Structure formats: C-alpha cells, structure tokens
C-alpha cells in the first residue's frame, strides 16, 4: 500500500465513498459531468483501487479530478453504496495539500475560488455576498440583476431583507464576534492551514508563470482551453 493511498484512506469521505466498487460504470452513466467533460469516474475509482502511488500522483496532478460538479447523482445510483463524488472530494483536498493542484488548468482554479468564497465567509459570514458579486463577472445574471445591483440598498429594502442591518434577517450584518468565531473555527479545524496551502502553492505557480497574484487570479478565473470537453 502506498503513502498517497494511505493519506486518502484516512479521509472519512474516502472511507464512505469507496467500499466495494465493482467497476460497473453506473456512476459514469448517470454523471452530468461525464456527459460534458472528458470525465469518467469509473476509471478514477479503478485507478485508486490499484493502490499504485505513481498512478494516484498522476491523478492528483490531472485535470480529470476537477470536472465533478458534486451533485451526487452517483451516490443515489451506485448498486454497492459508493459515492464517486465523495472520493473526488478527498482527492481534491489531497491534491491541494500536496501542491499538485497547480499542475492542471482546472486545479489552478482553486485559487480564485478560495479568494472569493473563503474571503466572503471570513469577511462577511456568507459564502456569497452582494458586495463581491460583480455584474461584469456575471453577465448571465441578466439586465434585471444589473438593475438590482445598481439599486441594491433600496432593492433589498423593498424585498424585506435586512441588508447590513442589526438584528436578524436576510443579509444582516454578521457581528464581529460571530466572524471572530468563524476565524477561530478555521484556525482549529484545518481551514486556515488549507487556505495557506492554496496561497503558498498558487503564489509559487504565479511566479513561475511570470504573473502577479492578481494577474494569476484573473487568468485562472477566465482561462479555458478546449481540451476539457467531449465533442
């Protein structure tokens, strides 16, 4: 048994997600990502079950582990109670901890994701927050949302939200002491350590690619090569 396999096997999601895979391919058959991307969860589980660290390392550096949308259609349909999506989550975390995620275009996207979502959690107490939802990056939100964001204080007031207000309600201002508790949770539970790993390895990759962190964040948020898709 290899070291990478041992690390994977220590993850509770891996232990719950890969029990007795018979490689029937049901997960791939129902997977929305397998239809869209060059993605085959059956193959990933097959590779892992060989317990070959060289092959697992290649997987952790690959594009393929980043295609899953974590919808868990696979979990419903697996005839043996496995969940390829959970195994993917364990693979992604290990890829980040080892710094392998910067070896793939899709893996490098962890950086803008972390900056945006973890930033929102620690700064505002929400995963998504109106002040950081920029219309120019979300043209799909439509002219109605451009209009709404242009009038967001009065718009949220009209809809009965408590945007940046005290007390309960939608989009209330999360108090400093509550945000401090979230930060303390990140510190004791590995969240801060994971964020720091993402920062460190992404910083190294940005330097290697001759970019500032800001340029790298924008590039990884927008760069899309055609190799990912089923045609």
């Amino acid at each position, binding site marked *: 048994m290899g070291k990478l396999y041992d690390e994977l096997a220590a993850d509770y999601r891996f232990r719950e997600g890969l029990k007795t895979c018979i490689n029937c391919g049901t997960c791939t058959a129902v997977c*929305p*990502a397998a239809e*869209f*991307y060059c993605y085959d969860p059956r193959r990933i589980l097959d590779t892992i079950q060989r317990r070959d660290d060289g092959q697992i390392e290649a997987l952790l550096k690959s594009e393929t582990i980043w295609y899953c*949308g*974590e*919808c*868990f*259609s696979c*979990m*419903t349909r697996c005839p043996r109670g496995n969940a390829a999506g959970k195994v993917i*989550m364990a693979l992604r*975390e290990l890829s*980040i901890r080892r710094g392998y995620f910067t070896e793939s275009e*899709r893996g490098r*996207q*962890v950086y*803008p*994701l*972390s900056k945006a*979502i*973890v930033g929102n*959690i620690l700064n505002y*107490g*929400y*995963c*998504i*927050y109106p002040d950081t939802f920029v219309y120019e990056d979300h043209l799909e939100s*439509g002219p*109605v*949302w*451009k*209009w*709404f964001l242009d*009038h967001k204080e*009065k718009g*949220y*007031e*009209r*809809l*009965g*939200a408590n945007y940046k207000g*005290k007390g*309960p*309600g*939608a*989009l*209330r201002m999360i*108090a400093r002491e*509550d945000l401090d*508790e*979230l930060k*303390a*949770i990140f510190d*004791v*539970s*590995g*969240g801060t350590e*994971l964020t720091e790993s993402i920062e460190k390895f992404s910083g190294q990759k940005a330097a290697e690619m001759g970019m500032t962190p800001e340029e790298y964040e924008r590039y990884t948020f927008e760069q*899309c090569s055609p190799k990912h898709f089923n045609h």
Partner: protein
Amino acid sequence: MIYQGKQKIWSDYQKDIPDDHWYYARSCIRQNFFPASEKYFLEIARKVLGKDICDNEHHTTCGGIAYHSDTIPQETAMTIVARQFALMSECGYENLVVSCITSFGNYNETIETWREFPELEAKIRENLWKACRREFKVPKYVAHASDLIFKFRHEIAAKSVNRLVNRETGEPLRVVEHIGCHYSKMFPHKGFGGAEYPCVLSGMVESWGGQVIDYPERRHCCGYGFRQYHVKANRGYCVANTHKKFESMEPFHPDMIITNCPGCPYFLDRWQYVISEQTGKTYGQGGYGIPVLTYEELAGLMLGYDPWDLGLQTHQVAVEPLLDKIGVKYDPAAKYLGLNKEDLLRPELPTNMKCH
C-alpha cells in the same frame, strides 16, 4: 396493512416531521437572490400556520458552498455546522429547519458521518469548544423548509385565494418540479419520497390545483456544480445542463417551474436568458421564457400576497403570463418601484426573450 411493490418503497420514504418549534437556518444564495422568499416563509409559517420559528441573528453560512468548492476541509465544514447546532441548543430548540438544499445535505452528511464514526463527532466537539467555548446537542430533527410547506400544504390550500388553474379554460396549470440534487440524492431517506418518488414539490402542486409534468430529464442537475459556476471559465457546464433540461421539458409545454433549492431557480431562470441571447430560442409561449418560482413564492401567490412583495420582479423571465393565467391581481406600474413607491428606474430588456 401489508404494503407491496411501489407502495412499500413509498412507505419507506415517508417522514413524520414535528408539528412545531423550529430553529431556522438561512441560505446564502436565497438571501442574496430571493430574500423575500425567506421573509414569506417565516410570514407563512408564523402568521398563516401559527408556528413558532426562531430566527437567530448570530448564525452564519454553513460553509456548504465552500465545502463543495473544495476550499475548506470536512472538519472545518463540520465545526461550522456544530456551531449552528450550538446556537440552536442555546436558544432552547431541538428541531432545525433549513432554507438551503446544500445546507440540508451538509447537516445530514455531518450527522450521518458522526453516526458511523463517533470519534469524529468527539473531535468536532473539541474543535468547537477550543474555538468558541460552545457545546451542542445534535438536532432531533433536520427538515428542509419546503418539508414544512409540504406538510401543511392542505392548510395552505384551504386558506388560498388563488389556485394553479388556468382561469380562462379551467384546466390545471402544467408544472415542472425540480427538487435539487442535495435534497435526496445523497441521503434518499431524508427527503419526502426519496430520490425515486420525490413528492415534496409535486405534493404542493397537486394540492394547489396544478398538474405535475413528468419528462425525461426531470431528475437531471440544474448544472450549478459549485466550482463549475463560481469560476467564469467553467460556466459552459452549467448552461449545457440547464439547456438539456429545457430541451427535454419543451414538448410538454410547462406553464411554470417550481424549485426546492435556492440555486436552481436562479440558474433555471438566468440560463433561459443566456440561451435566448446565444441562440434566439425561448421556451415559453409567445417569445417569453418559462417562469421559475421558489416554493415560497408559489405558496405566497396562492395565499394572495402581492407578486412584487414576493420579489418576482427580480426574475429575468417575466412572470406576468403566469400571473394572468392564474388570475393574480397585480399593478404593472408598481413592478420596479422601491418602498413607498420610490422610482428605481427599470432594467434594460433582453435582446430576444420577451419581457413586460
């Protein structure tokens, strides 16, 4: 009584949820895009149904979007969840009602994993004590907010002023329901009807007079995919999944779509706009899109709340064709006004999709 066949499977997926006294956990996406839905959930639960629901200002995101975007570890997600449990326990509640499908999945994943690995629950309790000096009881019951609306759907129907019936023809309106992946794909026994026979939304639709449409891609994901949406480069995945669903439902001519998850109504609404801009195609009648509503918005319409109080003006797909079919009274001139009728101007119109 001995149940057999589908009846037996169906009986396995019934939930006997508590009648009253709930602690409410809000949704990040619903607060951002459908805040009026949360307001009217509380209004309906408290004022129409007479229920006791606690809305505590100190709770935060459950971290579910970060967790499923792989930016926080499982232990962090679970410790945030444990803090929500602690706040609930401190307020004297035992039943948790959740506004978000991914939160619902996240809470259930946490509790189920702890059941299998008690040492992990002990670790999370230690984390929470170190970080926050808090302790908690695991909720006796975790429900999604739609479970409560489903449970009391007949009471809502009895108090309704509108029905899901075409007032011109007297025919039931044709409704697509979309329950959202994390409601019952991860833990089928946690959802009404499980993953095979989900009835949380179809039950509401039928109680309120509508007809549920079955179509081939009924259970297909809306395409959110977390990192697939939150990174601009990946959004082709999202629109492709929504497109697949709309192509599949189109021949059945739905009058509307009702949704369970906070993200799905946003995506099923907005990607219709994108598809219309990219291809010129619209899926509703007469160049309109198909209106997509949250279950709170639909319950509110049935009960006679003003559509603009419910926030239907913030949808990209115009809802007026649906309101006209039902016979909902509304003031077109008030659609984009602020509080006290303040003029907030109007959004620009899409190129191809007709809007009022």
